[in-house]
């Protein structure tokens, strides 16, 4: 029990970033409500709905991050599970493949247990090496080969994209001791969550205010070059400003912020492409007004693994 309380203790850096997040949320709530009071409209209504769901998501993220690492692992595992559960029926993998889908679900607790136990090499190989062979084989031994090329392609993809990527966030708890770094894994986790979240918001904001030319007109007309460049540049600056949460130097933090912003955009664009092919607006309706789990977590699941490897490289490998 004492150990649990010790692990729960919050450090000054984490307190600061939570204070900043709350300030942003309170400020935007007050601002949009005032705007809505003075001049109601469609845009301000969308902003209000978005802010309300950010309140919900921030509350969930902060509570899960600050709780005992075990709770954080379970929370992340649940997000991976929710992503798969949401996408499989949309990808039409719910009929003949349902028993193999159960196996894909069973991969999630194994992967996060490996992360919790700190078995890093097995963790890194489990899905892209072992399950990459086991799942197609399980599809084959059903004895039914109709449509099997499609499911052999989709099932390992879904595991790598939405379980393997997300699970790197749990691995942040097993970084080796870095001298002079006090914010801890909770700090790193909040740093990534903050960057990806603010990247979403800023790309939306820059796109709405000065956006003209679409990046991917056929996939997602809402994403503009102005929004992308403005978002990436501002996230790079924010990453430098918040580097007290990380063991990084200023230029390293800038590079990490840049990579996270670009990866977040890539994840977003991939999800848009998938949704457009399936002919749906949102992947689900988990948070009213904000769509399903994939709509919210596309950026995180794409940025998590690059973020972990950048932190590991700059904080551990390059620091010697």
């Amino acid at each position, binding site marked *: 029990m004492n150990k649990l309380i010790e692990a729960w203790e919050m450090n000054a850096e984490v307190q600061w970033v939570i204070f900043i997040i709350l300030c942003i949320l309170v400020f935007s709530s007050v601002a949009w409500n005032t705007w809505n009071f003075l001049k109601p409209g469609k845009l301000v209504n969308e902003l209000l709905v978005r802010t309300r769901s950010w309140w919900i998501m921030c509350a969930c993220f902060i509570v899960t991050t600050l709780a005992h690492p075990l709770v954080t692992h379970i929370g992340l595992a649940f997000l991976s599970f929710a992503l798969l559960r949401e996408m499989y029926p949309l990808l039409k993998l719910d009929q003949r493949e349902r028993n193999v889908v159960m196996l894909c679900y069973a991969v999630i607790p194994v992967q996060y247990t490996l992360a919790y136990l700190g078995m890093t090499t097995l963790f890194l190989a489990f899905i892209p090496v072992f399950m990459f062979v086991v799942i197609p084989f399980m599809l084959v031994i059903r004895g039914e080969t109709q449509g099997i090329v499609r499911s052999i392609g989709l099932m390992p993809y879904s595991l790598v994209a939405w379980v393997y990527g997300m699970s790197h966030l749990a691995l942040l708890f097993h970084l080796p001791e870095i001298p002079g770094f006090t914010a801890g894994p909770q700090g790193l986790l909040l740093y990534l969550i903050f960057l990806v979240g603010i990247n979403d918001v800023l790309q939306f904001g820059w796109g709405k205010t000065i956006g003209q030319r679409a990046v991917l007109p056929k996939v997602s007309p809402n994403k503009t070059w102005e929004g992308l460049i403005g978002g990436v540049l501002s996230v790079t600056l924010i990453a430098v400003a918040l580097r007290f949460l990380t063991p990084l130097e200023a230029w390293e933090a800038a590079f990490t912020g840049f990579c996270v912003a670009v990866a977040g955009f890539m994840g977003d664009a991939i999800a848009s492409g998938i949704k457009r092919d399936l002919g749906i607006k949102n992947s689900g309706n*988990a948070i009213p007004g904000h769509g399903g789990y994939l709509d919210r977590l596309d950026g995180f699941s794409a940025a998590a693994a690059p973020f972990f490897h950048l932190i590991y490289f700059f904080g551990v490998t390059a620091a010697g």
Partner: protein
Amino acid sequence: MPAGSIDAELFNARVPSGRRWLLWFLYKVLWRTVVGLVIGLRYVWGKMPHPDGPVIYIANHNSHLDAMSLMTIVPSHRIHLTHSVAAQDFFGRSGFRSWSMKNLVNAVLISRSKEDRDVDPIELLDAMLRQGHSLILFPEGTRGVPGVLADFKRGVGHLASRHPDIPVIPVYLDGLYRNLPKGRTLIVPFGGTLVMGDPLSFPAGTSVDAITAKAHSAIASMASELKNENTLPPTDSP
């Protein structure tokens, strides 16, 4: 119709208070949690509040999970008074099945064929409504083809026309057939949606066929509304 046998059946439907707490725990606590976190069922509530007193719930039927999920939207204080109407020939086939249907699902079993029954099911359900019980009906009569709304049997029309004061709540269940399709025993979580519609009430004297048709169109329109909610219009962007 011998009145004595209806009394006997009604006596069987009376719920001891121990089972009331069991049902409350099973559906309002345990199953609600499982359905929300593991299966991932999304609830879409109607605009109107749930009416007090006896109601008739009607829903489309594609899976064994349907009745159990409907029990989670019943108000806690009426959970022991709410009975799913199930087929005697399927659920009464073995002693264990009929025992668990009665004690764990709080169901009433009715006979589907006209030959081997001594009680007319409509008379029985009518007497139950009169005594203040609520009913869960699946007017399609069987689990049918997944995702296709079959024609309704006229039972709901008969009951609603005899009780113009009892509201009919249409419920549309989408996607539960993926979690547990007909003929499977393994539940695999794939999410789903439960849309609770606004209560329908029919003035006294509405014909049985009109009520049945209205109930069908209410559920069909909820189905198409849910489908359109997330379809990409050609010009919009994801």
